[in-house]
Structure formats: structure tokens, C-alpha cells
């Protein structure tokens, strides 16, 4: 009897680990394939069929071409601007909103909260948003990917929840010392909320780094394309319809297969490199968010 159970549990354990190992391999292999392919000698790679378990030869030529490509460098520069300026705007706006809405005894706060949260559930739609962005003169500017997305309501709620958890006594004593709201926000609330600020920076930064759709709609000038739009041209433009694809099919790069993979690595490495170090902040964000649920 006792022995039986031991065997059953061991079998159970074996099955658990097997499924997990399969999941890990399935998750990781496509990424490794991309990495191997990017270092391969392109002639060997093109004739190779099937799986890849190591780079075929070793050639940094693909990376050289990628890093020499002016489109990618420009894209990197534009994305860098969008991420830094965008996250700054996001943080300032979200912190302002979260601070005010986390104060107690403010008559209009409930109404403002309803006003803001409603936008999570109903939207005017893509076309009206486009018309507004056009109307305020942001079209074809990098700011079109920043200003219209200055606050994420979901993040605002997370930050507000976190601000509400700060003990009132701290602020009360500051108030008695004559501190105004700006001082309380900058000297007390923000320093005490560093974990949630970190979560916000990461959420917003990943969002900005990965964003492509609105840039593809709002930005026409090729010199202003963020990295993801350049990537789309290189990786998929020929198989999807887009605003720009047809227009300059001629001067789209004629890129070899390995260069494609090197591009993916160059564009993804920064995020995946930082990610293991900041993973716990992301997880924390999900937890704070789910508390509010």
C-alpha cells in the first residue's frame, strides 16, 4: 500500500517534470534557432534544411550589415527618444493623477475616477482617434506616439492603489510642518513608492519599445520610423498590407536570411538582456494589479 503510493507519486513527479521540460524546450528553441541562424555563414544556412542545433560555421557578417544599416540605426534613435520622452511623460502624468485620486476627503475624486475608468470600457474607435491626433497637429511627429498615450488607465489604478497604502500619519505630520502637495508628493509619497515606480517604468518602457501600430498610422516620414516599423518592413512587410509597404517596395532592403535573424537579435537583445534582472518587478506589478482586479 505504502509502496504503491510511493510509485504513484514518483510517476506523478516524472510526468510533471517531463511536461515542464517540454514546455521549456518549446519556448526556448525558437529563440535559440534565431540566435544560431544569426551567427551562421549565410551560404551554409540557406542550403540547410530542418532543425538547427548550433550555428553553421561562425560569421559576424550579418551583424555587420545590420549595424551598418542606416534605417536600423535611425530606428534605434527614434525608439530611444520615444522610450525616454514617453516614459517621462507617462510617469509625470500618472503620478499626478494617482496622487490626487489617492487623497481622501476630496469631493470630486469619485466622479473623476468614474470619468477616467469609463474610458477603459468604451472607446470612440480607431478612426475618431486618428482624426483627433490629426486635428491637434501631432500627425507625422514622434510625439504622436507619446502624447495621445500619456496615461494608461490600468497603470494609473495600480499606482493609485499603491499610493493609498502609504500611512496617513506621515503626510499629516508633513502637513503640520507646512508642506504643500508638491512637497508631499516629491518628498514623501514618491520615495516611499519606489517599487511601484519601477513597475511603472518597466511597463511603460516595454510598451513604448514594442509599440508599432500607432506609429505606422500616425508617422509617414521614413526618417521618423521607430525600430519596430523598420523591423516590420524587414521581417514581414511583403506579406501584409500596410500604409507604407507598397510605396517603397523598390528601396526596401534586399536582405539575406541570416541578416533577418541578426536584425531580430539586435532588436530584441536589449529587452531580453535586462529582463531577468527586472523580472520580479513585473511579477510584483501583476500582483498589485490583481489586488484591485
Amino acid at each position: 500500500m505504502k509502496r504503491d503510493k510511493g510509485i504513484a507519486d514518483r510517476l506523478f513527479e516524472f510526468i510533471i517534470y517531463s511536461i515542464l521540460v517540454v514546455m521549456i524546450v518549446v519556448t526556448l528553441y525558437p529563440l535559440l534557432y534565431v540566435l544560431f541562424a544569426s551567427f551562421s555563414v549565410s551560404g551554409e544556412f540557406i542550403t540547410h534544411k530542418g532543425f538547427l542545433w548550433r550555428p553553421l560555421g561562425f560569421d559576424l557578417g550579418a551583424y555587420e550589415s545590420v549595424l551598418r544599416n542606416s534605417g536600423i540605426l535611425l530606428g534605434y534613435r527614434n525608439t530611444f527618444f520615444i522610450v525616454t520622452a514617453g516614459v517621462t511623460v507617462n510617469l509625470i502624468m500618472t503620478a499626478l493623477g494617482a496622487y490626487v485620486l489617492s487623497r481622501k476627503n476630496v469631493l470630486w475624486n469619485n466622479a473623476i475616477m468614474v470619468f477616467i475608468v469609463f474610458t477603459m470600457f468604451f472607446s470612440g474607435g480607431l478612426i475618431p482617434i486618428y482624426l483627433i491626433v490629426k486635428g491637434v497637429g501631432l500627425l507625422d511627429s514622434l510625439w504622436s506616439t507619446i502624447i495621445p498615450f500619456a496615461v494608461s488607465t490600468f497603470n494609473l489604478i495600480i499606482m493609485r492603489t499603491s499610493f493609498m497604502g502609504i500611512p496617513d500619519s506621515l503626510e499629516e505630520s508633513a502637513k503640520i510642518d507646512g508642506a504643500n502637495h508638491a512637497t508631499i508628493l516629491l518628498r514623501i509619497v514618491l520615495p516611499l513608492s519606489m517599487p511601484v515606480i519601477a513597475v511603472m517604468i518597466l511597463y511603460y518602457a516595454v510598451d513604448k519599445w514594442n509599440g508599432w501600430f500607432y506609429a505606422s498610422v500616425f508617422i509617414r516620414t521614413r526618417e521618423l520610423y521607430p525600430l519596430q516599423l523598420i523591423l516590420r518592413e524587414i521581417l514581414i512587410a511583403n506579406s501584409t498590407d500596410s500604409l507604407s509597404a507598397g510605396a517603397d517596395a523598390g528601396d526596401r532592403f534586399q536582405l539575406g536570411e541570416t541578416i533577418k535573424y541578426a536584425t531580430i537579435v539586435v532588436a530584441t537583445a536589449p529587452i531580453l538582456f535586462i529582463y531577468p534582472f527586472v523580472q520580479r518587478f513585473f511579477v510584483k506589478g501583476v500582483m498589485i494589479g490583481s489586488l484591485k482586479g
Partner: protein
Amino acid sequence: MANARIEPGMARPAGDPKRTNRFARDFAINKYLYLMIIPVLVYYVVFHYAPMYGAVIAFKNYSPVKGILGSDWAGLKHFYDFFNSYYFLRILKNTILISLYTLLFEFPAPILLALLINEVRSKAFKRTAQTITYMPYFISLVVICGIITDFTNSDGVINRLFMLFGYDGQAMLQKPELFRPIYVLSEIWQRVGWESIIYIAALMSIDMEQYEAARIDGASRFKQMLYITLPGILPTIAIMLILRMGNLMNVGFEKIILLYNPVTYETADVISSFVYRKGLLEFGWSYSSAVGLFNSVINLALLITANWISRRVNNSSLW
């Protein structure tokens, strides 16, 4: 929600304390707070509420020259056109089917993963499994779709693999019948780890004594998982499920428009991608806004219904 009542003695109101209107008193105390939130309010008015107003072009024949206000009214013409068009049933069917397939196959995956990870005793293995399965979530959609396109191309690695099992080797994204499987499977690949976090969090709050008791009763690990762990996260599963139901008609266009092409429209084109194409690529502003508005209203209705059910069944709701 913060209590909006003003407690007496918080601050000295201007004028006669008894007679002062509470709005004026509140404003006197909180005027700097209101000043601080003005930029946020302006943002919401301009970029969320103005577009909602802008949606009236769905009832007009919008012309860029005349503007939103100046364009002529068209009544429900665009809605009729849409409901009577060949596309209506197609994109409605595609939206619902892609949603349902995702619900059926992608929704349970993170629950399963969380249960599996919970059974792992080795801390190092657990950490590795989590770190690796979360990773794809942070890769940009453009790159993911680039990889999908490449792997399923006629000489791509997935395509090659399937040829061993008798697949004819055509580029898989050119086949309408394969679009939905590719979409759903890649969703699982990208999201399973990330979405498991919430279940793993719920698992941690299960009372350890229950396992203790089960062990004494001689329950196997599998039985413990089935009868303690799974019921323990059932409330979380229910909430997530209801949220999903509320989003049934809400298939995002970003991934669709990166993966589809005219050959696969018949299975791939959903409401949001249709709105995008008709509006921004073919400049049917009003028609496209009508379709978008139709979708927004359905989404809102579904969400309210789902929330209502959740409140009834689960005693938990979004608002």
C-alpha cells in the same frame, strides 16, 4: 473608493462655516489638488472623450474638408450598409471563432502551467521554468510575427517539420484553414508563462494545513492537486474567465494585421482589422467608424453582462 465626505475641522473654511456651500468649502481646501489633476483631465477629454464624440461621424458622411461638425448627416445608412454587406457575417464569424478558440485552448494553458510549477519541489528548476516561460511575453509583436512568418514559410523550420508528416510544404500563412491554429498556438507560446503568474499568486494563499491533512489521509500528490490545489484557485479562474467573456468580441487587430493577407481574409479578418483596413487604408471614414462603434457598443454590453453575472455568481465584480 475614497470617502468623499468632508470631515469637520479638517481646515477652516472661508466665511461662515455653517452656511458655506460644501462645494465651495471643498474647493477652498483642495484647490491645489484640482489644479494638479487638470493635465490628466485634459488628456482624457482630448484623447478619450473627444474621440467618443468624434464617433458621430458614423452617422454622417464625413468629409475631411467639412470637418466633423460640418459633414452632412447620413442617419443609419452606414450601419445598414454594413449589416447588409457580404463582410458582416464573415468578420463577425471570424471574430467570434478566433475568440472562442483562444478561450478554449489558450485560457486553460496558464492554469495548467501554474499547477505544474506548483508541484515542482526544486527551487532552482522552478525559477528556471518561470523565467523562461515568461520571456516571450516581452518580445515585441512585430518580432514574434516575423518569426512566425519565417518559420512557417515554405522553407521554414516548422514547415519542414510538418512535411515529415505529409504536409505539402506550402507557406502556411497562405492557407486560410491554418490561420486560426497558427494564431492561437502562437498566443499560447507568447502568453502562457505571463498569465500563469496570477494563478501562481493565488496558489500561494492556499492553506498548507489542507495538504497536511490530505497526506495523513493518504491522498496521492495527484489527488491533492485535483482536490485541494485546483479548487483553491477556482475563484481566480472564475474571475479571469468572466473577464474573457466580456472581451469575446474584442480581438485585437495588431497581431491579425501582421499575419494576415488577402488570401487568408476569409478566416482571418476580424472586426477591428476590417475597421483598420476600410478606414485608414481605403478612407471609408464614416463607414469604418460605424463598424467600430458597433463593436464598441457590443463590447460594452458584453462586459456589463459578464460583470453582472460575476457579481451574482462570484460576489466579485469589476465595479
